[in-house]
């Protein structure tokens, strides 16, 4: 009985259906009222608006963030450039407008007509770009004859300007126009045709900071396409300004010193990991990328044997040569193979199996301990301890010192270098490791490859007592108004695999290199500067690797690369520098003076600032 009452018959639904009909009719009445309002009440006004079709959208491009050095010197800004546009629908009669335009402008009629025809239809109401970056004189004549040129519009677009040509080009990078493939991908959905996008270096890496946010406005225009009224504006947010860690003065000095050479200089603050300067030579003018290069300019850049587009600090992989001896020394000391007082005798060569391994000094160094071995760069000493260490133990230490992998500096494709061990060789060549190869590795002269940035991190770590700080190039990010968006803190990868005593010995050896009477870099000694360092002469043509047949190259290309790693002041390090000069022959004669000059400049600035502080 109860069940019967609860079930529903159709009549119950029918009563509810009446309510539904009322609701539906009510909704339709709302629609009809709205329609009446739009079409009858506001109809005439909206008709007027539609006849002139006078509401347009205009973009407001954000200005790209500026780039400063660590002291607030402006490195990159934006300059105004004037772009010539045409709005086809406003330019009627179009033939006359084009004819008039050609009188004032130096552009080809064919090109203009082709551009107009291509844009007919879809873009009748949108500005079509006719010519980029017209000069100020052309602008003046256009502005003077505005009445003859309906629908012609000049808009000002900021254009990237690299103030110091060739300066820190590799670090800062450059921009270029976004291409059609990128525009189609979702990743670049906020960009539009004609936008510039960071391609390399800081400009690429920090694109999201630099770009800013696009704004726009709704405007009412008259029949001639001139703005009559701005209906609504959404302001653009300018990009954030970047404060880099580099020091403009040091950077310029480094580039000046590298002039005419192929090579790289990188300087770092040992305690913080801040990159003070990063120069790769030869360099290039970034402004050419923004303006657009001719084929000839581009071909010159890419066919240059000295690879100007390569950032040699990060991408250049070189044999470390004698600079590797610090790692061999750390390994030997830590493993207890030698101690501070162990000596080996060097008579100019070392016989291993039936092969003779030479020391660079034919007459030999006599009895040497570890400190002398480092400062005089005695090869025989390191052959012997290398032999005792073995390739794999040495490789373990090298990796712990940060070699063989990228440092993770925020920049472009960094090379990882190479730390060879027995397994690597087996995998790579299929042959077993030869005992003699261990000796070559111990003096950094085998398959080993390092990049200058890895070496400066290593030098800094030795200098600051063993902490391997991650190199950083960005100090802080600020809004256009100057408030801080974010600050980059010092990051560390960990410590060197070396005890305090070991480091003391290594540092002593490096001090002797510059300051000792027999040190390999004694010629680079500058009075009043307490620097420590290590030279390296990396043979390019190594008979054990290349075989003798390859000696058909030009002589200049046979010359070894010159390395110098240094830090100063020795007991309170403020700067660490790595220098490589390709085919510079000797580390002591070409690379060391460059490094020392940079140190001198930087420290003199420091003492100047300090004395000013004291004076206050």
């Amino acid at each position, binding site marked *: 009985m109860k069940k019967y009452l609860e079930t529903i018959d159709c009549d*119950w639904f029918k009563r509810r259906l009446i309510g*539904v009909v009322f609701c539906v009719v009510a909704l339709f009445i709302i629609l009809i009222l709205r329609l009446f309002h739009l079409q009858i009440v506001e109809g005439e006004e909206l008709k007027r608006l539609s006849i002139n079709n006078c509401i347009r959208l205009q973009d407001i491009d954000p200005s790209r963030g500026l780039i400063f050095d660590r002291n607030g010197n402006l490195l990159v800004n934006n300059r105004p450039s004037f772009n010539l546009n045409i709005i086809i629908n406003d330019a009627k009669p179009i033939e006359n407008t084009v004819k008039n335009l050609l009188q004032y402008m130096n552009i080809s009629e064919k090109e203009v007509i082709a551009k107009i025809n291509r844009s*007919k239809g879809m873009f009748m109401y949108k500005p079509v770009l006719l010519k980029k970056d017209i000069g100020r004189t052309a602008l003046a004549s256009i502005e003077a004859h505005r009445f003859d040129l309906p629908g012609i519009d000049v808009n000002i677009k900021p254009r990237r300007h690299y103030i110091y040509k060739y300066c820190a080009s590799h670090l800062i990078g450059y921009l270029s126009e976004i291409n059609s493939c990128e525009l189609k991908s979702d990743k670049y959905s906020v960009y539009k045709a004609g936008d510039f996008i960071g391609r390399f270096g800081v400009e690429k890496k920090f694109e999201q900071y630099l770009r800013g946010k696009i704004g726009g406005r*709704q405007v009412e225009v008259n029949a001639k396409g001139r703005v009559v009224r701005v209906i609504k504006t959404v302001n653009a947010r300018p990009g954030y300004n970047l404060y880099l860690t580099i020091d403009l003065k040091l950077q310029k000095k480094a580039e000046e010193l590298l002039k005419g050479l192929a090579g790289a200089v990188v300087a770092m603050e040992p305690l913080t990991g801040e990159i003070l300067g990063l120069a790769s030579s030869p360099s290039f003018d970034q402004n050419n990328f923004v303006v657009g290069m001719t084929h000839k300019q581009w071909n010159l850049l890419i066919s240059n044997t000295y690879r100007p587009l390569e950032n040699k600090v990060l991408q250049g992989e070189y044999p470390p040569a004698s600079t590797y001896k610090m790692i061999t020394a750390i390994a030997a000391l830590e493993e207890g193979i030698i101690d501070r007082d162990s000596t080996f005798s060097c008579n100019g060569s070392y016989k291993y199996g039936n092969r003779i391994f030479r020391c660079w000094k034919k007459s030999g160094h006599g009895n040497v301990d570890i400190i002398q071995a480092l400062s005089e760069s005695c090869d025989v000493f390191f052959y012997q301890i290398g032999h005792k260490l073995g390739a794999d133990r040495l490789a373990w230490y090298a990796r712990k010192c940060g070699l063989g992998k990228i440092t993770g500096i925020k920049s472009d494709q960094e090379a990882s270098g190479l730390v060879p061990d027995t397994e690597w060789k087996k995998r790579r060549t299929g042959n077993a490791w030869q005992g003699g190869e261990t000796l070559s590795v111990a003096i950094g002269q085998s398959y080993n490859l390092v990049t200058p940035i890895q070496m400066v991190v290593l030098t800094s770590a030795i200098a600051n007592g063993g902490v391997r700080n991650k190199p950083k190039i960005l100090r802080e990010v600020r809004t256009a108004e100057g408030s801080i968006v974010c600050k980059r803190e010092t990051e560390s990868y960990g410590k060197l695999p070396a005890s305090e005593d070991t480091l003391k010995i290594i540092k002593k050896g490096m001090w002797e290199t510059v300051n000792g009477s027999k040190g390999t870099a004694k010629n680079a000694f500058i009075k009043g500067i307490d620097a420590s360092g290590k030279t390296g002469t990396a043979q390019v043509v190594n008979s054990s690797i290349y075989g003798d047949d390859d000696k058909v190259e030009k002589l200049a290309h046979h010359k070894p690369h010159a390395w110098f790693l240094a830090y100063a002041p020795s007991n309170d390090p403020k700067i660490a520098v790595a220098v490589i000069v390709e085919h510079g022959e000797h580390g002591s004669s070409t690379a060391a003076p460059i490094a020392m000059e940079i140190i001198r400049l930087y420290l003199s600035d420091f003492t100047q600032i300090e004395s000013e502080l004291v004076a206050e």
Partner: protein
Amino acid sequence: MFDRRFSQYFDWGILIFTIGLGAIGLLTLYSAVTSGAPCYQSILYVKQLIWYCIGTLFVALSLIFDYKLLDRWAYAIYTICIVLLICVLVGGKYVGGAKRWLSFAFISIQPSEMVKVAIIIVLAKYYSRHANTKGFSLRYLVKPMLLTLIPFILIVMQPDLGTALLIVLIAGLMTVFVKIEKKTFRYLVLVCALVIPLVWIFLKDYQKQRILSFLDPGSDSLGAGYHLIQSKIAIGSGAVFGKGFKKGTQNALSFLPEQHTDFIFSVMAEEWGFVGSIVLLFLFLILIIWGLNIAYACRDNFGTILCVGISVMLTLQVFINIGMVMGLMPVVGIPLPLISYGGSSIVTVMLCIGILMNVSMRRFVFE
């Protein structure tokens, strides 16, 4: 299965109104895609005609079967639709930042359209079994809620918030129609009132921003807001008698976005004015009331609720779409039934109308 008597009960009225709306739709679409500069869209009206034919074929075939079969197959249909929705998320085609399409050899379908019908069928089945005069208590509402929630979440993930909310609205209104217990109703309202602000707190900033601009397109004066202004200008400029067939300037000069799909009413209103728009609205109103009348005449609960669900769906789509282009509603991608271009939408709506005819035809038959 097919009885000769059915032809004598055939619902000619609904057929005529459907054809009338379809004809207006084709004509408007023809104007919308051919008035501007020639482009790849210019032949869309031919495609649309083909879709109408396919839809008609489906309807004719479906009339052979008794609609009560839908009752029996409800869960199967529902499951197939859910599987299709999952397929979309897994292997769907990206169009404009959302995965809504499933493409086969030469056609793309939009399963979220079909899901609307599936939900109506499955809820009609459930409610017809459990309906009582006191209304539904919370215990009996759990299942319909789950049935609605699954497609809702899947569609939100596409993401297509508009269609997802439409499904919830259809399900909700159907539930209100079969009556919710008073206590339960109050309770549900209270829970919604509490949960919505709570969810708001936990949303991320960018999500809030999205919802805000979804609710208030005026805040996005350069994107959706601009389109809305142009749409209003188009509709308003039609005034009383309109600018005439193929003479709508807003449409021809591509000021209207999506003029062949979501904004097709603007094209129609611009060309045919207040008079034409009213005719269209009345055709829709009659079609919907006709559908409700079929529900009224139907003698079994399943058929009644089914027809109410379909009428509610048509009402909501008409109201939301036309309301949107006139600036009454946020801009969401809901097509105008029978008028907007789109195969999935056309076929789905035609199938719905087929169901109405089916119910209407068999109203006097007893088993």
